[in-house]
């Protein structure tokens, strides 16, 4: 009898650790996909029609505004290719997931409203990242976004009482120091040259703040939905906001959005856009999958390794090496994430208090 109890406890512990293992595994995949995303995200700017579009708008409205407008079109296309990638993902998972997607969308009041809200945060964050990429560079954009777990953990704690342990709090503090290094490093050298790319820094802040809030909102909605459906809805929402509201509004203001949107049908441009959609879409699939298993704060903490992946990939593929401030900041952010990651999991079978 006693033997039985012990072995049951052992199996129980094993099962719990398996759950955490899967959660962390998903989060790690998220980091890799997310890191890779900065490759197409960087390459797309120099391709036509975006290059031409930038030159055309810059001629009348100046470089900065032009870059912002091009970032809008790129982000909107990014959302669209993510929707395609995710619909395919649901189809691959089987007919149940497609039916569940439909059920979840139509349960708007109870369920999908959270994902439409997450879509607003998501669109601001992605747009911010593209701004940071366009104005400053991929490495800065990636590492600046690393601050999002700080926002995510704080919001999750204040809003629905997710436990943040001492260790996690220590990790968060280290990440904040990393953030200071990234921003201060870049700003100091730019202030010396006299031209500061404010839009880029603002973009970095937008990415961090809104990805954090998005994660917390998503955590709320995931209580009642399956992540595969939730996520697809979140991207359909984002694509909707861009293509039904922002792009028409900019068109009315006289920007040639549709002209350039309709000239993307060249093999290389489509491949790069689809690559962005697949990597970004799947980084979200894996991210959302990790939340119910390990909690929003920790899911985001591990996903954080994307910053390191991005810096390495950008270096390997484009040969641009980031400045020391970014490397030190990135290492601090990853260390902070690791502190949250290696937290002792004993006794946290449920991640939330009642």
């Amino acid at each position: 009898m006693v033997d039985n109890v012990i072995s049951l406890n052992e199996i129980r512990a094993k099962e719990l650790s398996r759950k955490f293992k899967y959660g962390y595994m998903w989060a790690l995949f998220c980091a890799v996909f997310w890191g890779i995303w900065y490759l197409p995200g960087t390459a797309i700017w120099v391709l036509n029609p975006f290059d031409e579009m930038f030159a055309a708008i810059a001629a009348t409205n100046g470089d900065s505004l032009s870059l912002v407008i091009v970032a809008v079109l790129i982000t909107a296309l990014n959302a669209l290719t993510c929707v395609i990638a995710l619909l395919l993902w649901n189809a691959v998972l089987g007919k149940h997931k497609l039916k569940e997607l439909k059920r979840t969308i139509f349960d708007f009041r109870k369920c999908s409203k959270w994902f439409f809200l997450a879509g607003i945060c998501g669109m601001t964050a992605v747009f911010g990242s593209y701004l940071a990429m366009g104005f400053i560079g991929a490495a800065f954009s990636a590492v600046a976004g690393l601050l999002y777990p700080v926002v995510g953990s704080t919001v999750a704690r204040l809003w629905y009482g997710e436990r943040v342990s001492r260790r996690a709090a220590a990790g968060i503090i280290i990440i904040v120091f990393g953030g200071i290094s990234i921003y201060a490093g870049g700003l100091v050298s730019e202030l010396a040259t006299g031209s500061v790319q404010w839009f880029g820094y603002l973009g970095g802040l937008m990415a961090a703040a809104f990805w954090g809030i998005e994660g917390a909102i998503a955590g709320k909605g995931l209580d009642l939905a399956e992540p595969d459906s939730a996520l697809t809805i979140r991207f359909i929402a984002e694509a909707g906001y861009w293509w039904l509201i922002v792009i028409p509004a900019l068109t009315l203001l006289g920007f040639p959005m549709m002209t350039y949107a309709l000239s993307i049908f060249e093999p290389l441009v489509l491949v790069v856009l689809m690559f962005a959609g697949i990597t970004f879409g799947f980084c979200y699939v894996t991210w959302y999958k990790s939340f119910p298993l390990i909690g929003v704060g920790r899911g985001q903490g591990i996903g954080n390794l994307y910053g390191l992946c991005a810096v390495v990939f950008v270096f390997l593929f484009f040969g641009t090496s980031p400045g020391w401030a970014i490397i030190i900041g990135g290492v601090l952010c990853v260390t902070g994430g690791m502190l949250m990651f290696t937290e002792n999991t004993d006794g946290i079978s449920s991640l939330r208090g009642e």
Partner: protein
Amino acid sequence: MSKMGERPLKIRILGIFNDGKPHWNYEIVEIISKEYKMSGSYESSLINFDLVELASGGMISDVEQKMDTEGIYKKNFLLHKYVITNLGKEKTAGACALGRN
């Protein structure tokens, strides 16, 4: 009953737990499979994963486990018995399950 089948899976599952009684995972898998016309081990595992997610979200609580020695659900793995939590009840009453019946 057919109207029930239109809700997202997790909401329907919480609706079942809302009777306040504990349920074994294989019982839930059986009920849901029937209502949503799902079958096979792959679709069963999708339903079971919803239970895992609901439990880790604190909606339901894992109150009892036993070894599945006979292969009722998955041989030599744990069977779980869950009961709805206060948080789960709140969700069910306020934001979720039974509001549209």
